[in-house]
């Protein structure tokens, strides 16, 4: 009898409607209005790669040990270096990072013994050409410069 009445008065459907009605005015809205409102990514976020430079003298921190290139599963990092005859130390000449093949696993970052290579919180890495995805040393040191929209 109760079941029949419940069926006639559409109790199950109104129960569901009540749930949607309760959620009409949510306290927290998850949708981000992206170009205007930028997401705050976590501190450990693995985004665009960066080659750190020493802030005091502007020299690169990279010691061109090639460990990141060996750690990379896709072998997309190419490091070249030249031996400085005066100091007998290897000096970085070029550093190429192919972001089009990168899967941001963070293994290069783990491998780096001097924390020179780092995956940063930048996530806007789109380019108009494929060649633009291959980052050279200068690009890696400066980082991407996306257009910031305001409204």
């Amino acid at each position: 009898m109760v079941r029949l009445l419940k069926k006639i008065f559409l109790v199950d459907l109104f129960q569901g409607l009540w749930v949607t009605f309760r959620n009409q005015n949510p306290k927290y809205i998850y949708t981000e209005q992206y170009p205007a409102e930028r997401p705050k990514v976590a501190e450990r976020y693995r985004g665009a790669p960066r080659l750190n430079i020493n802030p005091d003298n502007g020299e690169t921190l990279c010691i061109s040990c090639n460990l990141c290139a060996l750690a990379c599963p896709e072998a997309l990092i190419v490091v070249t270096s030249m031996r400085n005859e005066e100091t007998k130390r290897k000096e970085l000449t070029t550093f190429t990072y192919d972001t089009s093949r990168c899967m941001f696993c963070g293994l290069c970052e783990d491998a780096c013994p001097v924390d020179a290579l780092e995956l940063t919180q930048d996530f806007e890495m789109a380019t108009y050409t494929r060649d633009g995805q291959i980052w050279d040393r200068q690009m890696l040191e400066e980082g991407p410069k996306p257009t910031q929209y305001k409204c």
Partner: protein
Amino acid sequence: MPDQTFLDSTELVINMGPQHPSTHGVLRVILKLDGEKVLGTECIIGYLHRGVEKIAENRTYAQFNPYVDRMDYVAAVSNGLGYCLAVEKILNVEAPPRAQAVRVILTELNRIASHLLWLGTHALDIGAITPVFYCLREREEALKIFEKYCGARLTTHAFRIGGLLYETYDGFEQDIKEFCDMFLPRVDEYEELLTTNRIWVGRLKDVGILSADECKEYGVTGPVLRAAGVKWDVRKAQPYSGYDKYEFDIPTRQNGDTYDRYVVRMQEMRQSVRIMRQAVAAMPEGPIMGKVGKVIKPPVGEAYVSIEAPKGELGYYVVSDGSTQPYRCRVRPPSFVNLQALDRMIRGGLVADVVAVIGTLDIVLGEVDR
């Protein structure tokens, strides 16, 4: 005028997919129809084949770790756990207790995230649009915890062979506790929307029945098997990563139809919350990395480890020839095995139920095709 035209034929063969939104990826199903009735189906897979098992043979053990996340991409953490456990078994090391507790918490959180995505899309296939918004809202909370912990939301690469790379962030335990408290009322909300809803029940009851014997014949695992009444859960049967320390039930149902699979998955989410609460309450202190060298070079041997992924039993079989690269890495994906039961479940059913049955199997094509 010919005696018979194509209009007279009663059987009709149509393609569903590979771009059909309800096939959850790039699955192509050839349906043989007689009016509304399905006479037979054939699955064509392989549109997302990347040769992951072959890639493994050309990568070192640590380098292959991020690739396993890309198989079942909605439950990347479970895949990572299975692979790490398999390599750890050859190496004969065990992750420290703290690493095991964090692994359990994250895999259970991932189970919830995976089931939420399943529930949302499954309801969307059936025609209920509301649940997907609520499910993705809660999934967002889970993904935020992943992002805070390891820096990525989906392809997490959270675990390393031998333990963990990342120590938990400040407030990790608080976040998990808050998630658990927030989540249980939300499950009630979904159940309020769906469990007694007459349209939902009408679409799912007695659709795609797979009995316990048939499940065993096909090798079907996970919630599909448990909905048929078989109490089989790898977490209980062969405890790994310290699951024997936690108290939880294996939800089972008897009929093995689509509705029962829905109920079992809802219960599983509640059990996951229960496990997470216990793991957070008894989180041991200590190191997070076992005794593993920088270069992982396991001795000659092989290991098979299976874990309970959200979709079923996920197995990793790794053969080592003593070098730094695996000689062979074979994956036993739950989605691939479960998918072959599709023909048995849908034969004789209605064409409208095909999407319901594909949805209830909870397949991820990245894992089916590998």
